């Protein structure tokens, strides 16, 4: 679109010598930043972008220690984390860069679970379920007696915080006898491997693996809704659709390449989200993001 002028302006800005933009944080958001980095680098060859995957919490830790320029987050920054940044003198700007729908996935051979209610999910994932809810037959009468094999986000990821809050009502409250992983892709393999398996992760990962997995519709009280770009943008895929963030350090944004990258990210959001298989921003979100970037200058 009309982004070229922006990027050209930005491209001339960075110093002639090669420079590095350090990004770390949520592994969910990482592909987004990586895609942005790839596209950005195509036009700014001398800028290096590295994207770590320490998880949202881990990312903020590094971010607030000044180790990174931009932090990827799959949830908004927490008060304690913000306080830590403030204590370290790191000012930042939050930018929503994409939408995601946490998709519940089951094994292809699972022909009984097509739609699950939030209550059923809670029954599965609540701390009380630990060691007691072990079979699908305990979830809903009529489900077969197939052992329940759960895969989910690692405890340091924003996804975990988000999911536990949405399903179990409190961040961090969850049964522990599931396969937690920082790497959502492990879940793909896990769920693919066992008939009674269930997991959750971002919509993009599901779309990548539609041939291996099956998505489950979620009933948040207003009927069964399938996860998709439309339902995510429209907010009807509740309560599991969420925005994804990047946090840009104001100190770092003083460096022209960081600022240019942030501008590029927002200006090319549609291309980036498409490349990374995420749900693009709605027009209102774009306006908000542009304003946030403008505030960095």
């Amino acid at each position, binding site marked *: 679109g009309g982004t070229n002028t922006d990027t050209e302006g930005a491209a001339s800005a960075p110093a002639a010598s090669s420079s590095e933009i350090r990004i770390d944080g949520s592994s969910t958001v990482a592909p987004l930043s990586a895609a942005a980095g790839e596209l950005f680098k195509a036009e700014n060859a001398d800028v290096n972008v590295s994207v770590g*995957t320490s998880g949202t919490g*881990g990312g903020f830790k590094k971010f607030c220690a000044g180790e990174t320029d931009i932090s990827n987050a799959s949830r908004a920054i927490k008060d304690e984390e913000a306080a830590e940044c403030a204590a370290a003198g790191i000012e930042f700007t939050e930018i929503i860069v994409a939408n995601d729908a946490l998709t519940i996935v089951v094994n292809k051979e699972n022909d009984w679970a097509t739609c699950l209610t939030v209550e059923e999910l809670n029954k599965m994932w609540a*701390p009380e379920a630990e060691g007691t809810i072990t079979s699908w037959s305990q979830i809903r009468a009529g489900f077969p007696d197939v052992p329940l094999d759960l895969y989910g986000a690692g*405890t*340091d*990821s924003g996804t975990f915080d988000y999911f536990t809050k949405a399903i179990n009502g409190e961040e961090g409250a*969850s049964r522990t006898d599931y396969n937690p*992983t920082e790497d959502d892709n492990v879940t793909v393999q*896990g769920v693919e491997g066992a008939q009674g398996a269930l997991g959750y992760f971002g919509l993009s990962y599901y779309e990548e693996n539609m041939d291996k997995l099956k998505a489950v519709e979620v009933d948040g009280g207003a009927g069964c809704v399938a996860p998709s770009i439309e339902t995510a943008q429209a907010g009807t895929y509740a309560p599991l659709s969420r925005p994804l963030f990047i946090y840009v350090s104001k100190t770092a944004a003083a460096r022209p390449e960081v600022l240019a990258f942030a501008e590029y990210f927002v200006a090319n959001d549609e291309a980036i989200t498409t490349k990374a298989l995420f749900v693009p921003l709605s027009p209102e979100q774009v306006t908000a993001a542009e304003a946030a970037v403008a505030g960095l200058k």
Partner: protein
Amino acid sequence: MSDSSRSISTSDFSLRSSSPRIGERIIRGTLFSASAFSVLITIGIVWSLLVPAIEFFRQVPIMDFLTGTRWAPRFKPASYGVVPLLIGTLWTTGIALLVAVPFGLGSAMYLSEYASDKTRRRLKPVVELLAGIPTVVYGFFAIEFVTRVVLKDWMGLTVGTFSVLSAGLVMGVMIIPTVASLSEDALSAVPLAMRQGSFALGANKMQTTLRVVFPAAFSGIAAAVVLGISRAVGETMIVALAAGNKPNISSNPLEGAQTMTGFIANAALGDSRVGSLEYDTLFAVGLLLFTMTLIINFISIRLVRRYREAY
């Protein structure tokens, strides 16, 4: 005998050193520092594990840590019982030994007692190649081939993506060379005279191998196995990839489980906040792992020393 006054002496003859040889001393000093540096490394390891671990044990009683059966450091409510991780480690290590000990020992006996010199020189390096393969590649292989093809397709087992069986099997192959190579050394160290003694009594090769050479090399072989155990306990990438991340007290090797190393690797990817209790768990587990391998290794050194002293 002659009188000493008649001995030859020359006035300008001296046995003092012709130069002070300061360079020599500097070199010796440098070399010593290099080897003393290794002690610093150990101190460093202990220090880097102990400091955060002590912090951890201030909040979690050490007995709760060692005997607790629920490992959930990042959940609400959190609990810090390391037993599930120990059991995971026990599973993978045990399965690995079931593979490595018979096959490693069999290979060692063949190489040392049956193979010609030439054959041994060719085959031993090939076996040792197994030790040179990156453990990431092993892990990849465990998931892609052992679990999917061997366990699921060929054997028809109902096994998930992650299982201690698959990780253990592959890890067993990884430590075959450790067991084989060191056992072979121990077997070859048995003096030829002992074999000759046996043959001269009319024993055949199998009798000689099993009744004379094997018992004579026993402590060396035990050391090889013990070292294999310590490799298995400390191996990270195979279990991180193939055993899964679920702390699990299970009696079913087809299930996945998290090992101590697996936890450390996984937790490191997550990178909790420095100073938090969760962060310190990493070091508590690390310290436990270090202590375990230290003990195992001491046993192995003892055993090796015994067979070295025997001949």
